[in-house]
């Protein structure tokens, strides 16, 4: 095995383990920490796939900023007391069946699917660099980029509208 392959398999194993810990952990703070680990592993995958800019952004935005928001939310909710499980056995079984079927279908598809091949001779290693990404983003995908600012604006207005304390509100 080549070094890249070894790194790939190790990273994948850690990613899967930490991702399943996110779901199974009892303590929500542990879940968040496991999620951060998952993001770091994904960053490793990005680097392996030559998407360096995405790797950096993943660390800054996801593992950094968004995880802070997750922690904030956990602090908002009082999750100290163990709530009894609200799900019945039937819903759990159904969820397992549906998730399992999805997994089986996915695995089957990915085993049989043909992915467009790549030619090492002509492969451009600079494809994932900031420079090439910028050229694509600001030339081909100009319209979605500009309209993404409308999305930001909606999010901003919504956050202010829902989150701002009005004069009559409770004050903690």
């Amino acid at each position, binding site marked *: 095995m080549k070094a890249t392959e070894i790194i790939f398999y190790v990273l994948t194993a850690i990613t899967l383990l930490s991702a399943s810990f996110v779901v199974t952990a009892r303590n929500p703070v542990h879940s968040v920490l496991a999620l951060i680990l998952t993001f770091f592993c994904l960053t490793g995958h990005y680097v392996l796939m030559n998407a360096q800019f995405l790797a950096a952004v993943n660390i800054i935005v996801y593992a950094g900023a968004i995880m802070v928001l997750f922690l904030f939310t956990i602090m908002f909710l009082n999750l100290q007391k163990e709530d009894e499980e609200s799900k019945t056995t039937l819903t759990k079984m159904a969820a397992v069946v549906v998730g399992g079927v999805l997994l089986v*279908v*996915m695995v089957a*598809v*990915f085993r*049989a*699917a*043909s*992915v*467009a091949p790549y030619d090492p001779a002509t492969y451009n290693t600079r494809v994932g660099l900031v420079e090439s990404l910028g050229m694509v983003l600001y*030339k*081909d*995908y*100009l*319209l*979605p980029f500009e*309209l*993404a600012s*409308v*999305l930001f*604006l*909606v*999010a901003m*207005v*919504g956050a*202010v*509208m*829902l989150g701002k304390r*009005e004069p009559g509100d409770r004050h903690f």
Partner: protein
Amino acid sequence: MLPIILLSVFGIVLLFLGFLKTRAVLLPAALLFILIALGAGFLEWNKSYLYFGDMLLINNLAILFSTIVLISAFMVVALSGDFLEDEMAQPAEYYAILLFSIVGAMMMIGYENLIMLFVGVEILSVSMYILTGSDKRNLRSNEAALKYFLMGSFATGFMLFGMALLYGAVGSFTLTDIKSYILLSHGRPSLLLYMGELLVLIGMLFKVSAAPFHFWTPDVYEGAPTLFTAFMSTVVKTAGFAALLQLLSVSFSAIYGFWWVILAAITALTLLAGNLTAVYQNSFKRMMAYSSISHAGYLLIGLAALGQQSRSALVFYSLAYSLATISAFGILLLVAKQHTTDGRPDESYSAFNGLSRNNPLLAFVLAVSMLSLAGIPLTAGFWGKFMLFSAAVDRGMVWILILAVLMSAVGIYYYFRVVIAMYFREGQAGRIRVAPFYQFILIAATALTIILGIVPGLFQNIM
């Protein structure tokens, strides 16, 4: 293209108008902006344009769908006079978000690239999450917003994964590239394509609340402020079906044999789930939520039986459904205000008892919209159903047709419960004061429903 730019700018203008001392200017400004966008859209009539390197396709179909969206938005804004008087409401923000959400809807209607679809869906959904929770002091509204947000982002995740798989198979996000990939693959496209299409479909079917992805609908529609429920059940549905039509008819028409079975099964399930559950509801608002699920089912017939007639049938049905739904919610808004139980507006059927005695106009408007939703002749809803059903006949889908007709019969039962309550039950409903403009909008919608019901050809000539 022009309406999208205009609405983005107008949204910001409205936001800043909110800083003025008087709120009275907001409503006319919002209405004016929507009208300008409507007019600007028709500048591109009969010219088919591809904008910004195959990102956005504006043709007559897209303009018609956008017009329905803009008309729905216009009516919703016109009925929103109450916000200006409510101290707690923030009308400038509401209107701005409504305008921004129309930008998202228009992206979904005219997209030519899957990225545009995704950004459009996100703009529309995020706006809807916010508006659902806009009644901050109402616990039900908060719960509805949270539920909608969690489920909605999950569905968006599915859609995004599907798009990634499509890209993996095709190597492009453009709809026509996907089409030519399928045509060049000699009937053996990569399995990733099928999986990707399925996942994108699941995401979109969630947004239009088709069964089995409809569980969020009743709670969200009931918890959201009534006007925003009207907006959600019309604009989101119209845009969602326009997006599905675009995706299926442009990209995937070559593998119709693969997806029509799935879509037909979902159609049948949606019709059953929507109509049969609606029968058991005691709240009018909740019944309207289930009714919107069942109408998603009827619209899905047009997609499952994709053909020549589907386009015009879907446009016509969306228009008929939007007109009837918004006027029904408009009446509910007035009636529910009259009776309050535990400080909450009464939205049950009994609130409508004896409405016709003192408010014959309101009763008539609601009756017409119920008849149109039920698909009774001489209303627009009848011709909408007729066109969709004949599309199904063209494809030889007789069993779906039989099911749909049966379910329409069930629909008549629950729609007529309101009509019976209004005309044949005793009630103490006093005279309800209605603002002249409000009244005008209701009458206009009713008139349009009846005109389209008598001369549907009027509309087909435009197509």
